[in-house]
C-alpha cells in the first residue's frame, strides 16, 4: 500500500460498485468525512492492511479491487463498534457485510481463505442439519484447512466436560430449511434479489 501509487482516473474509479454497496448495505458511503473514529475503536484494525476508515476512503475513490483483494473485510469481527460510534451515521458494519457478499459472489481474489472456509462450513451445516453441529464444524475445518492438529489439546477436555457432543442435533423439519435455501437461490437466479 505504502509504495504503490494509486492512479485515479475515470477508468479506475468505479462508481457503480459504490452504488451497489450502498444499495446492499442501506447506508451512505459518500457521507464519511474520514474522522477515523471507526478505526480508533476497531478491535481488529491491527490485523487489517486497510483499517476501516481507509476501506471507506478507497470505496469513495472507486478503488474496490484493492479492498476485495485484501483480507481487511474478512478480519472484521462484526462487533459493530464502528457503526455505533460514527458521528455521521455511516453504518460501516453493514458496508463490510455488503463488501463480503460481493467478494463472496465473485469468488473473490481475497487472500483470506480460512475465514471464508469457516463461513462456508457454517452455512453448509445449517443447510444439512438445521442447527450448528460444533464438533463437525471444527473437525471438518481442520481437515479442509490442513491444520490437522489445531486445538488438538482442547478436544479431550471439552468432551470430558460434555461440551462437545458426538452426535449432532438435527431439526425434524429439514425440508423446511432446504426450501428456504432453495427459494433464495431461485430468487437470485430470476434476478429478484441481490
Amino acid at each position, binding site marked *: 500500500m505504502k509504495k504503490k501509487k494509486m492512479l485515479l482516473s475515470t477508468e479506475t474509479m468505479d462508481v457503480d460498485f459504490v452504488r451497489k454497496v450502498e444499495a*446492499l448495505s*442501506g447506508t451512505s458511503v459518500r457521507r464519511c468525512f474520514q474522522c477515523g473514529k471507526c478505526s480508533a475503536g476497531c*478491535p*481488529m484494525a491491527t*490485523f487489517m492492511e486497510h483499517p476501516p476508515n481507509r476501506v471507506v476512503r478507497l470505496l469513495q475513490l472507486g478503488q474496490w479491487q484493492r479492498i476485495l483483494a485484501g483480507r481487511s473485510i474478512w*478480519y472484521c*469481527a*462484526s*462487533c*459493530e*463498534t464502528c*457503526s*455505533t460510534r460514527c458521528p455521521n451515521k455511516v*453504518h460501516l*458494519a453493514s458496508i463490510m*457485510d*455488503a463488501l*463480503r*457478499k460481493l467478494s*463472496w459472489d465473485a469468488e473473490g481474489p481475497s487472500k483470506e481463505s*480460512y*475465514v471464508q472456509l*469457516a*463461513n462456508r462450513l*457454517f*452455512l453448509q451445516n*445449517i443447510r444439512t442439519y*438445521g*442447527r*450448528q*453441529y*460444533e*464438533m463437525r*464444524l*471444527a473437525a471438518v*475445518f481442520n481437515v479442509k484447512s490442513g491444520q490437522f492438529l*489445531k*486445538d488438538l*489439546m*482442547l478436544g479431550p*477436555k*471439552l468432551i470430558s*466436560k*460434555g*461440551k*462437545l*457432543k458426538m452426535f449432532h*442435533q438435527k*431439526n*425434524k*423439519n429439514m425440508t*423446511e430449511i432446504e*426450501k*428456504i435455501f432453495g*427459494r*433464495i437461490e431461485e*430468487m437470485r437466479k430470476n434476478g*429478484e*434479489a*441481490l
Partner: protein
Amino acid sequence: MTPKKALNYAYYPGCSLHASAGEYDLSTRELFKKLDIGLTEVPDWFCCGATPAHNVDELLSLSLCAKNLELAEQVEGDLAVACAACFSRLKTAQHVLAESDIKRRQVEKAIDAPVPLTSNVKHLLDILARDLGLEQLEQAVTKPLAGLKVACYYGCLLTRPTDVPNLDCVEAPTIMEDILKAAGAETVAWSHRMECCGANFTLSRPGVVIQLSHAILDSAKEAGADCIMVACPLCHGNLDIRQKEIEGVYNTEYAMPVFYITQLVGLATGLGADKLGLDALIVNPMPLLKEKGLV
C-alpha cells in the same frame, strides 16, 4: 407491593446452548424454574445464522431469523433469548424488515409466510432486570454473593448496534451490574467490559482470539475481579476454554473463573452447583466459591 403477575416465555436457546454451552441452558432453566418464570422451548427452531450468515448473505440471515420468529409464534409469550449473538440477530432482522419493504417481501417469499414484526424479543438480562424486576429478584436471593468481586463482561452484541431498540445504553450499560448487585455481589469498574473477544475467529483465526481475550482477562485481573460474568456462549468459550492457552502464550496466570449470569444469580437464589452446571466450566470455580463461602 404490586401482585406478582405470571411470566411465561417462548424460549430460543440457540445452537451453542444445546452443545458447548450446555451449562448455560441448564442454569437458565433451573433459575427460571426457581423464580417461577415459565419457559417453553420454541418447537423445532433453526440456527439463526449467527455471524457467518449475515457476513456473506444478508437475505439468508434475515430469512433464518424470520423463520424462527414465525416458529416462536406457536408458543405464547415474548421470545426469551439466551445467546447475545442470537439476540442481536433476531432483533436486527426485525428492525431491518420493518424498515425495508423490499427486503420484507423477499424474506416473506423465502420463508413463504408473513414475518411477525411486532413480537417482543428479549434477552434473559432484560427479563430478570425489568420483567421480573430487581426488587423481586432481590427478594428471591437467599444466599447473597457477599464478597464476590465480579467483572461484568458485555462484549459486543448485547447492546449494539444503536439504531436497533436494544437492551441498554450502548456505551455505558449497567444492566448486568444492576442484576449482580441485587444478587448481593460486588462489581468492579474495568476498561474492557465492552471490547470484542474475537468472537467466531476462534475457529478460523485463534491467534486473534488469544490476543483480544488476553487484553480482556488482563483488564479484569487488574481491576481486582475474582471472576468474570458473561451472557454469551461465544464470549464464554473464548475467555474460559481458551484461558489456559492464553496463559501459556503470555506466560502468565489468571485462574479466573468465567460464569454465565444464570449461574451466579442461580447460586444467590440457593441453587446447588449440580443444578447450575458448574462442573462444566473449564477454569474450576470451586476454590473461589469455597473461599467466599458460597458453596
